[in-house]
């Protein structure tokens, strides 16, 4: 994750309607970067899932949208941060193992398949950080 980063836009997620705001902005940025319909739908959906996780499981947090450049490649990097309960046993949750955290796990594993780079850090009691990147392709 060493690509130089351009303009960063930050959003707080304090209500359910903030999810829609983040989603819309991600869509705009993706389209500005020239993402095709499939890539746009993928990153917008991933953003929606991850923003919803922040709202539903952590009851609030922030997100950031950045355009990234890596030589010839351009893409969008999203960050979702919260100070929620954190996720214990992350690998199992990502594999859809816990029924109680099912929607969380599904949202995470689903999003993971929609992006090119996926990074997650979570400490029970401290919070969670999810970073995803999607590159434009020809």
């Amino acid at each position: 994750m060493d690509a130089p980063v351009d303009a960063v836009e930050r959003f707080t997620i304090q209500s359910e309607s903030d999810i829609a705001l983040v989603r819309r902005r991600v869509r705009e940025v993706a389209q500005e970067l020239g993402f095709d319909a499939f890539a746009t739908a993928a990153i917008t959906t991933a953003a929606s899932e991850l923003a919803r996780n922040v709202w539903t499981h952590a009851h609030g947090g922030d997100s950031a949208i950045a355009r990234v450049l890596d030589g010839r490649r351009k893409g969008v990097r999203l960050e979702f941060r919260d100070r929620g309960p954190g996720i214990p046993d992350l690998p199992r949750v990502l594999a859809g193992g816990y029924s109680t955290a099912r929607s969380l796990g599904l949202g995470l594993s689903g999003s993971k398949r929609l992006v090119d780079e996926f990074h997650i850090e979570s400490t029970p009691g401290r919070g969670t950080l999810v970073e995803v990147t999607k590159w434009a392709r020809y």
Partner: protein
Amino acid sequence: MKRDSIPILRVGDTLLITVHTELHDTVAEAFQEDVLGAIERSGAAGLIIDISGLDMVDSYVARVLADTGRMARLMGTRSVLVGMRPEVAATLVRMGYPMEGVETALGVDDGLALLATARVR
């Protein structure tokens, strides 16, 4: 609280609802209420949900749609989801939500034709 209800059309014994806007937050609840209320009042045998206007369906929306179908089924109404966009279908499948158990058709006409046949499973 006043809210705009989504227009529901009647085609013979089938209800047709076209989703124009994002199906999130309170809109989703209102959508379900409106649809099920209409089924209750009309006793329609079929329901077609046209989502050609949706450029994104995440797991939340997918659940709302699938649940609505299941609720309708409990009331004796068979539902068909039509008009899904290519990028929406691709995203759902990539995420791992192929929405099995939800009947689909290309558009309203195909949906009506499907409803006229016996349900496969």
